[in-house]
């Protein structure tokens, strides 16, 4: 008996629902983590096209140009890489690219272009060799005293560690008088960083300068700088403007470890310019490349997201229906709304998606009203069922044709929407409404029509919602959850909400006594 109770339909479905939930949850996690799918439909990934343009004057001797480049696995993922260097041999290393050539004279232009996206992961610790202990700067006593004073000031500044405190102090507005007198009157960002480095070396903290690009559209003559400090046995990045530790979201490291950004042998006036361009693409478009980069492409290639776009769009449209069906089931079996036909409201909602809700409502009401009128005339003829409903179908087609035609010629946009309504369903709505009208009176017919429209509108707002559509397609395992939820609802034996009103007279209320 106990075993049987455990194996009841309800329990089995409940367990299946739980399993489906687990599976959907895991799958959603996997998709977000490895394929980069996002929950929001509007989430788009920024793809940056970055171009490093190296130019110099060649003097005829063998040329070797070495440019620091973003190394792999530094957060950003490289979508495409492109090198334009005519007549040069190129070699790529982990974090540098080297161009070699002979017998070049005059103006030389080398381009290194990459497209990157996504800079998540690996933001804090950056593996690298441990530095030797920094040398104490050789300063006179006066400078040293000033430096110590500044360091003492920095100690009181806000910040999580010495480096952040110092950077904050350097960026205070206005600068503290002690620091102002210590700094030269004019200084470049690089000089500012070098002064910070010196001060930190007094404290025995090894530092170095890294170069990279803050991702903002435009041209850059100079790369942006980051301060690196060796803290807790790892190199850590600090934003020289805010002191915040870690690689900022929009920062692409080009060169690290105090090495030069550009070395040119056999040329003069060397210069590197950067230009950045942003393009937006949906995260879905990047999913396949991302999966490939993460070596998770096997599953991806076998998923629906690897289908041709046309098929994907059809599936996207299909994936939204289970949730619409769930709503229909809830409205009928839990709320207890009486509608015309089970899925008629859903089909009406589907047309509303094509027409827009306002135009759809107006059009649908007009088609049904006109159809009912014709149907009433027709009921005098006492036709047999199949020819009668067929005639209604043809009438619906004629009404739709007429409304679309008039709508176009009179420039009434709303009327043109009528072309999207499913003719057979509309005809059945008219037929059923007219039979209900004759048998149970106008009030009942209109109530049923009204209920169907209300349910249609509710379903419309579900399936027209961008979030719902996106989520149901991207995390389509949820449809499995809905399946079991619907089946579980098939065992729901509680009262419908409308029954609370219907059977209310059976319960004597205390205030009536």
């Amino acid at each position: 008996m106990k075993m049987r109770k455990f194996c009841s339909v309800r329990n089995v479905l409940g367990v299946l629902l739980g399993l489906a939930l687990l599976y959907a949850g895991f799958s959603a996690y996997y998709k977000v983590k490895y394929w980069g799918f996002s929950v929001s439909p509007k989430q788009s990934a920024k793809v940056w096209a970055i171009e490093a343009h190296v130019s110099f004057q060649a003097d005829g001797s063998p040329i070797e140009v070495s440019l620091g480049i973003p190394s792999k696995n530094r957060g950003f993922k490289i979508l495409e890489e492109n090198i334009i260097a005519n007549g040069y041999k190129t070699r790529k290393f982990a974090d540098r690219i080297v161009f070699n050539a002979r017998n070049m004279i005059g103006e030389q232009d080398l381009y290194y272009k990459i497209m990157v996206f996504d800079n998540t992961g690996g933001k804090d610790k950056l593996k690298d060799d441990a530095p030797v202990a920094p040398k104490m700067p050789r300063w006179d006593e006066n400078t040293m005293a000033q430096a110590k004073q500044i360091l003492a000031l920095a100690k009181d500044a806000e910040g999580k560690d010495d480096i952040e405190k110092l950077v904050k102090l350097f960026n205070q507005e206005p600068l503290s008088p002690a620091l102002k007198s210590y700094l030269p009157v004019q200084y470049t960002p690089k000089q500012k960083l070098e002064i910070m480095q010196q001060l930190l070396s007094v404290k025995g903290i090894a530092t170095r300068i890294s170069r990279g690009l803050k991702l903002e559209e435009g041209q850059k003559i100079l790369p942006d700088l980051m301060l690196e400090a060796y803290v807790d046995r790892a190199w850590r990045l600090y934003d020289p403007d805010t002191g915040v530790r870690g690689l900022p979201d929009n920062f692409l490291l080009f060169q690290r470890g105090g090495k030069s950004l550009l070395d040119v042998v056999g040329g003069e006036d060397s210069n590197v310019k950067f230009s950045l361009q942003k393009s937006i693409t949906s995260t879905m478009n990047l999913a396949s490349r991302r999966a490939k980069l993460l070596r998770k492409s096997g599953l991806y290639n076998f998923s629906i997201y690897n289908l041709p776009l046309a098929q994907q769009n059809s599936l996207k449209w299909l994936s939204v229906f289970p949730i619409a069906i769930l709503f229909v089931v809830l409205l009928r079996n839990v709320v207890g709304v009486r509608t015309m036909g089970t899925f008629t409201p859903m089909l009406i909602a589907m047309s509303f998606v094509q027409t827009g809700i306002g135009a759809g409502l107006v059009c649908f009401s007009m088609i049904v009203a006109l159809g009912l009128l014709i149907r009433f005339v027709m009921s005098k003829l006492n036709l047999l069922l199949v020819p009668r409903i067929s005639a209604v179908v043809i009438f619906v087609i004629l009404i739709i044709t007429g409304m679309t035609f008039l709508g176009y010629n009179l420039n009434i946009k709303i009327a043109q929407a009528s072309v999207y309504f499913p003719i057979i369903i509309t005809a059945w709505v008219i037929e059923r409404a007219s039979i209900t009208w004759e048998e149970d009176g106008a009030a009942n017919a209109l109530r049923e029509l009204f209920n169907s429209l209300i349910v249609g509108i509710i379903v419309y707002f579900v399936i027209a919602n961008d979030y719902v559509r996106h989520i149901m397609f991207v995390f389509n395992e949820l449809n499995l959850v809905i399946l079991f939820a619907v089946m579980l609802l098939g065992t729901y034996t509680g009262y419908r909400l409308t029954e609370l009103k219907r059977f209310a007279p059976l319960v004597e209320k205390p205030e009536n006594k």
Partner: protein
Amino acid sequence: MFNWLRAVCVLPAKLREKGILGMNARNYSVIAQYNSRRLYPLVDDKVQTKSLALKAGVQTPNLIGVIAHQYEVENILAMVKNHREFVIKPAHGSGGKGVMVVRGYEGGKFTLASGKVIDYNEVYQHVSNILSGLYSLGGQYDSALLEEMVHFSDAFKDYSYCGVPDVRVIVYKGYPIMAMTRLATAESGGRANLHQGAVGVGLDIKTGRTKCAVQHNMPITQHPDTKADLRKIEVPLWREHLLIAAKAYEMTGLGYFGADIVLDAQKGPMMLELNARPGLAIQIANGEGLKKVIKKVDKYYPKSLPPEKRIDYILR
């Protein structure tokens, strides 16, 4: 909003306490449980129900003939030539839809029960409509039944505005558990549908006397049109009514159904039709919940008794 809700609705717990059977519970816990789907045709098709009733010795209005195909429709006059009055109904109809009562005919003119006179073409059309499935469940092709007319007893004469009411008995596991009669009103257009304004009169299952009467869910004491005192209804031959309902259990094998029974002045109670999915409005007419009674039957009522003994048990 909230106050309004509180005024019109009740908490589910209250309904549960009262033992009210909801639509979901009826479908899932009762009908799906006790009514095997393969038995439905027995009650959905009135021809089959009739022949079953004949075998079980349950009275039904005599069958004159069945018209199953369009080409047979013209035989209609030949079929009814020995009958002065007859009823045409769809074999798969429900709730009295598509029923035409012909009280007399002469020279191509047919007088209906309502007093309306129509000509042969209209009768022909009506039968055609039945065959094409206009009144059948789901609209599938149907056949038309020709039956002898029931001569209703006078018992309900004062209580009905139009037509004659039948008695609906709910049978669970062979035991009649609840009964009511539905009285048409002017408002309901002569139809016996409670939601259209017909009066529902709950009948005491032991006596066949009025328990309470409701219209639009509100208790009333007199018929809105005939002004007859609804509290005084007492169905004659009550035991026979119950017996017909109880016998239908063995006849069909359905664990839960509604039996519609009419009282013929000469022949006594007759089974009109059975319904495997009887509505829940009977609870409102009785002021009582079906689930409460169902539980009682499950728990206390003896199993595998013959129909007579079950009625004895009910009336004990």
